[in-house]
């Protein structure tokens, strides 16, 4: 399971805002910190706001504020907003009619890729934003 850029930007934004729930962060502020385009990030934040993970605050000093439940919101909840996680692991081969030997190879490879995917999903589902913030603290220490 390879995360798209948007998903990573969303995770940065959620973790940044959840670690300062009282503050309003602007897209520019987060973008500068992670060296990403503010324009790109604004779209990501818009999706997060629609899902009520963050809320946008208007006016002077406006921006985005964390609006979720950090103890219950998981990494998977955020990832699912940006990725189609239910899609089966894709085979590397192009779509065309194949001999049965080839199909066996593809199926066997797909089984292994699906195994990896399942482990990744279980990991993302089991880590809440609160747990992630604790991990961030430990990594800082």
């Amino acid at each position, binding site marked *: 399971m390879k995360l798209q850029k948007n998903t990573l930007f969303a995770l940065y934004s959620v973790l940044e805002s959840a670690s300062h729930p009282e503050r309003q962060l602007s897209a520019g502020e987060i973008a500068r910190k992670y060296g990403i385009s503010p324009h790109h990030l604004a779209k990501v934040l818009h999706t997060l706001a629609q899902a009520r993970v963050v809320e946008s605050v208007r006016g002077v000093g406006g921006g985005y504020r964390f609006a979720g439940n950090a103890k219950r919101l*998981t990494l998977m909840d955020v990832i699912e907003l940006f990725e189609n996680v239910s899609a089966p692991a894709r085979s590397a081969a192009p779509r065309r009619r194949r001999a049965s030997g080839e199909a066996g190879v593809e199926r066997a490879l797909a089984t292994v890729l699906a195994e990896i995917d*399942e*482990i990744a999903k*279980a*990991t993302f*589902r*089991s*880590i*809440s934003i*609160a*747990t992630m913030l*604790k*991990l961030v603290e*430990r990594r800082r220490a």
Partner: protein
Amino acid sequence: MNAAAPAPAAAVRVRNVQAGDLGDVAAIDLEITRVPKPEYWAEIYHRYGTGRRQQRFFLVAEAAGRIEGFVIGEVRDWEFGSPRCGWVFAINVRPKARLAGIGSRLLGAICEGFRHLGVIKVRTLLGRDNQLILSFFRSQGMMAAPFIPLEIDLEPQGTDGK
């Protein structure tokens, strides 16, 4: 839904299991797994609860005279080729007593027991689809161990499985 709020963790005492607790322990397990297994619990008590082996732990959380949860584990040497470490085999909290810190207290207590025996690594093995227990252990700071659990279906005896 029961209106009674769970006992706060502070009102809970964590101690070694006693024979008289087994009924409550089995009832908690039954409430969660829906499979009655009295012989199993008698056997687990015999192996882990009688205090005959210093490195085995069977602890219970008691509040107002009732058992609200338990944890079972053991220190093992060179299991799966790894140096001495503590294993948590089971942790369960009565559904109505959850989210009040009892699970954390039980895990903290067994880890303290492991630490007394000089252990500095604690492991457990969990069902990948059991998000609740995975989230709990993750919240306690546990990370993936450098192992991959594997399994195979064996052909039933008498078949020519090649």
